[in-house]
């Protein structure tokens, strides 16, 4: 018999401490996020609310990048939803913890789950960790630092005099390029990515608004899934 799964304050603290080393890069990203938010006319309170309510780095970068007047409501919500669909695959890998604790605690724990804290938690679970509070503790750690960094970046970003001269307007682009490189899995991605980029550029030229992101993402990801299915399905 395995030891039973528990949910204790000690586990919460252990998760929090385990995520502390990540807080450095978390704050650095949050500062950049706040800075870009300011450049795109997202107010201080909106910048902070996004960090408190959405709490998803890539989605927030996307949101402040698309922030415009009038606000593209459908695109913002749709893009965030599509971008976060990957989360669907994360909770199931932690099922040994999440199905053993009361449902309320499980649903609260995943509210602060990020790519990073999911990775940490999965590593702890596989090493034999039996305290499911680890996930929430790690999440809370990054939640605090992410919020603090966002607000500081938003307040401080406005004080940089000529952001273009320092290339700071390019930070958003650079962020997505760096993020993109992590999703590269090999040559099989070439066609889907060309399709995503090509349809996005075409859609942007033809259709007003920001639909090009959804159109590019859907065409690229569907093509990628179809090609992969054909290769493995035989």
């Amino acid at each position, binding site marked *: 018999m395995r030891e039973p799964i528990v949910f204790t304050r000690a586990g919460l603290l252990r998760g929090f401490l385990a995520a502390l080393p990540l807080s450095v*890069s978390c704050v650095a990203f949050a500062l950049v996020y706040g800075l870009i938010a300011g450049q795109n006319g*997202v*107010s*201080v*309170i909106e910048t902070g*609310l996004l960090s408190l*309510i959405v*709490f998803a780095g*890539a989605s927030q970068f*996307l*949101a402040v*990048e698309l922030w415009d007047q*009038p*606000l593209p409501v459908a695109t*913002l*919500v749709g*893009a*965030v939803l599509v*971008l*976060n*669909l*990957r*989360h*669907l*695959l*994360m*909770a199931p890998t932690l099922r040994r913890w*999440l*199905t053993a604790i009361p449902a309320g605690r*499980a649903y609260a724990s*995943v509210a602060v789950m990020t790519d990073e804290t999911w990775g940490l938690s999965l590593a702890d679970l596989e090493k034999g960790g039996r305290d499911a509070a680890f996930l929430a503790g790690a999440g809370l750690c990054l939640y605090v630092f992410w919020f603090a960094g966002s607000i500081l970046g938003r307040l401080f970003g*406005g004080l940089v005099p000529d952001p273009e001269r320092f*290339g700071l307007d*390019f930070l*958003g*682009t*650079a*962020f*997505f*390029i*760096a993020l*993109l*490189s992590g999703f590269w899995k090999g040559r099989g991605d070439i066609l*889907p990515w060309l399709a*995503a*980029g*090509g349809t*996005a*550029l075409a859609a*942007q030229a033809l259709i007003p608004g920001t639909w090009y992101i*959804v159109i*590019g*993402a859907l*065409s*690229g*990801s*569907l093509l990628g*899934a179809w090609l*992969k*299915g054909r290769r493995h399905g035989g």
Partner: protein
Amino acid sequence: MEADLLALTEWWSPLLILAMGVATYATRAGGLVLIKRMRLSPFVETWLGQIPGAVFIALVAPMVLRAGPPGWIAAALTLAAARLWGNFLAAMAVGTVAIALLRALWPAA
């Protein structure tokens, strides 16, 4: 300087942010629901894995195109740095410094 810390783009923008939060939470909690209720088909599972890369490409392609020649070079350098070091912040620093230098050398853009 920020005159009003409580300024909003629209009076309803907090509601929009709340809707984005609900959408995000649905994906986080959705995985929990799935554990109990159903199994994803292999196609859907593969498709979900393909989405992030495609979203970022679709987002970034027009941004890079718009940035002009200095932006194209800086984008390539950012990508190379990210591949080489596997470090986000270092790659972003490379891209930012590169575009600042390239713009200084390429004033027409």
